């Protein structure tokens, strides 16, 4: 990930008239910029497992995580529970934190007040490769 913005693409002009397109040069599209709003707080990880398949996160997908965000109801997060990383949907209805899987094979995890738990970051994108 780059912390700096990309340079604009400028065609090389040898001599003669300046290119009429020069004044209209725009930055090429940068996936970094489109997907990473806050570079110093953004990290990537691989998702491993099938507990989130009904939300569209599959085994081997890359998730993009923004640590600067505070999770809202329904966000997908990377949590740390008893020293283990987990990707789940976050819920805090009625003051009860729950980690919700999106595959009926898996149970909802209820977080007790004294649990060794923290929100590591909020998942903002996931990327899947098709070939």
């Amino acid at each position, binding site marked *: 990930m780059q912390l700096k913005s990309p340079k604009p693409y400028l065609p090389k002009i040898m001599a003669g008239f300046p290119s009429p397109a020069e004044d209209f040069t725009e930055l090429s599209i940068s996936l970094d910029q489109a997907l990473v709003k806050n570079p110093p707080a953004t990290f990537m990880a691989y998702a491993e497992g099938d507990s989130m398949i009904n939300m569209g996160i599959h085994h081997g997908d890359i998730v993009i995580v923004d*640590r600067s965000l505070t999770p809202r109801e329904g966000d997908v997060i990377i949590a740390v529970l008893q020293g283990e990383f987990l990707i789940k949907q976050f819920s805090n209805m009625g003051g009860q934190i729950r980690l919700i899987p999106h595959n009926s094979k898996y149970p909802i995890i209820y977080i007790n007040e004294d649990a060794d738990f923290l929100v590591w970051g909020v998942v903002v994108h996931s990327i899947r490769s098709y070939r």
Partner: protein
Amino acid sequence: MIALADCNNFYASCERVFNPKIKNKPVVVLSNNDGCVIARSNEAKALGIKMGEPAFKSRDIFNRNGIHVFSTNFALYGDFSNRVMSILSDSVPSIEIYSIDEAFMDFRGIPNQEAFSIELRKKILKWTGIPVSIGVAPTKTLSKVANSIAKKQRKNGVCTLTNKDETLEYLKLFPVSNLWGVGRQFSRMLENNGIHNAYQLIQKSDRWLQKQMSIVGLKMVKELRGEPCFHMVNGWSRKKSIMTSRTFGHEIDNFKGLAQALSTYASMCAAKLRKEKSCAKNIHIMIFTNPFKQNYRMNYRGSKTIILDTPTNDGLEIVSRCIEALRSIYRPDCIYKRAGVIVSDIVPQSQVQLTFFHQHAHIEKRQKLMTAVDKLNDGYGRMKVRFAINGFEKKWHLRQEKLSPCYTTRISDLLRVKC
């Protein structure tokens, strides 16, 4: 006002971000080649692990106490350093990056500096997972003192020294050996003169201080008295680099040849730095195979960044660090076509001398040697006098047995999370 932000046990903290299991466990990081301890978590400090302790001697202690041991992962630490520095520089008018894990910040015009610092600290912890301490004071030297108080005595990680009487009380409790730039030699001399704390030191006359500790030492003491002598150097203005890179006349298929080429470029970079009277903190090396030749099995491009503790323009040091780095990226199954060295994060030489005056004699000696080398080369042609890079036959490998993955700089090394 000047603030110093310093990451707590930086290397150990970086390792913990991706390894929450070791949150409250003792952690040590070993130097390049797993030689000795160069970083410790608080828990490891409490167990009596010392800096610089040879790893082979401590193996038993590590095992007995369940200490988590890591090889240095500079790719990871460098990335976290960039993140922390970029947050700092977005938060204040200007910063001066002092080392991989500390930066001075210009706090002029910032109201309620204590509350601002507490918020900044929280932000860095949340965004990056790295805990920092912030010391705020009228001078750089005092901000170092404030930072040390913040680290040891403040739960919120922030200490602001604005009140003069309060500052003096702290200086009475502050041992001279912990002062900025006071090495073993000076602290022994001061102890012998009955000066044990910073308060006693500032009572001394300017004449005595200059005689005993040089002009730099006097400046440091003046700063302790609250008079600014070391000024901020804008951290971004020196973000330039020097590169030397060549395509070889004949392709190289052995380590020795590649090492020779690379060390030549490295000493050229060092000579350029000396000409500019500056020093570099980062060294980057690159090696390339020939991508246009189909008959070679491998198309390989290796690179490695070295971050120095002390910025340097010492050719000897730059060459040896390059060779060391080359060992870790060299592939014997490739044929090489091009190599290069880039030095970056460049600071004025005068500043390095100032802030590292405890090594003054050593640096001065090396500088004399380098000046002599430069003079000879100016007279007899470039690179006529060079380093005999020998000892390659020894075939030792860089030992990095406990290297953590490069979570942030290599896509194959990304954290894997269960879902």
